[in-house]
């Protein structure tokens, strides 16, 4: 109980600081702390799968993305001051936000008792998928369509970011060029960490069937390891025109879609798995998705192409 109050209080402080900081850089550090603390909140809420995702994506990947963005987005302080709403407008916005917050708080206090739950039906059908992790069963089984569309959203987000590049850069190499770290601490870390990280990433993706974890968490760790090698200059970013890169990017959604369509022929409908093959099919999709998620996340952080191939 003390722990929960402490976590909630610290999350609130970090959130307040993210908004109140004068310097954008300080705000980003506040946001990284916020993501970290939120991971603890999810662990306390018994949602370990979400805690893993928050640790990987909320605190890690978003933090890296924002840190690289903040140094390139140096706004003039005068411009920001001129565009900031006047005090009366801010008070009005504050009142509106407070009203919505209070309404939500009331809704939380008045949540129905006993709480409706899909936990029991989700558990009842678990053996049909051959999975031990109910969250994975929801993602791949009952709500498979959501997850398929989500994987497509990732590909579209990468395409949208690529399309931010000027026309002459199309097909080029994303992100800045980092000098190769031959010696020194960064080089050591970039050589030692990825092998361990890759094993952990694959473990998370594989163990996701029966324990917390899965393709998104594992894929994020894999993407992070590639990013480390990239910023240390040990790996080059591939040109976005690269066939192989594009194939890896769409492999997961394509396999998912193919299995879904096959379900219409051999099972009950779109995304229905034939009972005898549910587990192997899900593992196949997860494996392809892990690669695609890793590629997509790394490309989302690297940004639009900035140099010729």
């Amino acid at each position, binding site marked *: 109980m003390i722990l929960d109050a402490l976590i909630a209080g610290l999350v609130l402080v970090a959130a307040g600081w993210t908004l109140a900081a004068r310097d954008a850089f300080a705000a980003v550090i506040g946001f990284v702390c916020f993501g970290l603390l939120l991971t603890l909140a999810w662990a306390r809420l018994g949602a370990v799968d979400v805690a893993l995702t928050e640790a990987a994506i909320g605190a890690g990947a978003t933090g890296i993305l924002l840190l690289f963005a903040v140094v390139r987005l140096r706004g003039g302080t005068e411009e920001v001051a001129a565009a900031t709403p006047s005090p009366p407008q801010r008070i009005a916005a504050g009142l509106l936000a407070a009203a919505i917050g209070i309404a939500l708080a009331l809704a939380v206090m008045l949540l129905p008792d006993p709480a409706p739950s899909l936990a029991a039906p989700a558990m009842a059908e678990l053996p049909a998928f051959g999975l031990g992790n109910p969250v994975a069963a929801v993602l791949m089984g009952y709500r498979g369509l959501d997850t398929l569309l989500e994987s497509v959203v990732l590909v579209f987000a990468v395409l949208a970011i690529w399309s931010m590049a000027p026309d002459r850069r199309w097909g080029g190499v994303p992100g800045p060029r980092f000098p190769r770290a031959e010696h*020194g*601490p*960064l080089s*050591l*870390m970039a050589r*030692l*960490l990825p092998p*361990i990280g890759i094993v952990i990433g694959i473990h998370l993706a594989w163990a996701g069937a029966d324990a917390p974890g899965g393709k998104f968490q594992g894929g994020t760790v894999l993407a992070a390891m590639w990013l480390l090698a990239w910023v240390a200059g040990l790996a080059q970013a591939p040109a976005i025109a690269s066939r192989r890169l594009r194939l890896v990017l769409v492999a997961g959604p394509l396999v998912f879609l193919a299995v879904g369509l096959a379900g219409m022929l051999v099972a009950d409908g779109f995304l229905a798995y034939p009972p005898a093959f549910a587990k192997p099919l899900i593992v196949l999709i997860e494996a392809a998705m892990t690669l695609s998620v890793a590629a997509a996340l790394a490309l989302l952080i690297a940004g639009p192409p900035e140099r010729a191939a």
Partner: protein
Amino acid sequence: MSMLLQLLGLLVIAAGAACFALGTIGLLRFPDTLSRLHALTKADSLGLGLVALGLLPFAESLGEALLPFLAWGLVLLSGATTAQLIAERARR
């Protein structure tokens, strides 16, 4: 016996918590970036190591006992690296 070991483990974890507290005090009280960096690196490597050690009697399998040490090793590696990088930057 295992009860006794667990009590001992709690003591070791408490020592780890004290290390974290010392690190925070150093971070808050030391006058400049480099000395604060010194406080931070001692505290987080030793603090987490003690926690991993103190959790040993609570583990129910070998993997469960070793995983905290893997996390500790990762923190040591990245902590040592980033301390160097931050110091390099702060000295400029």
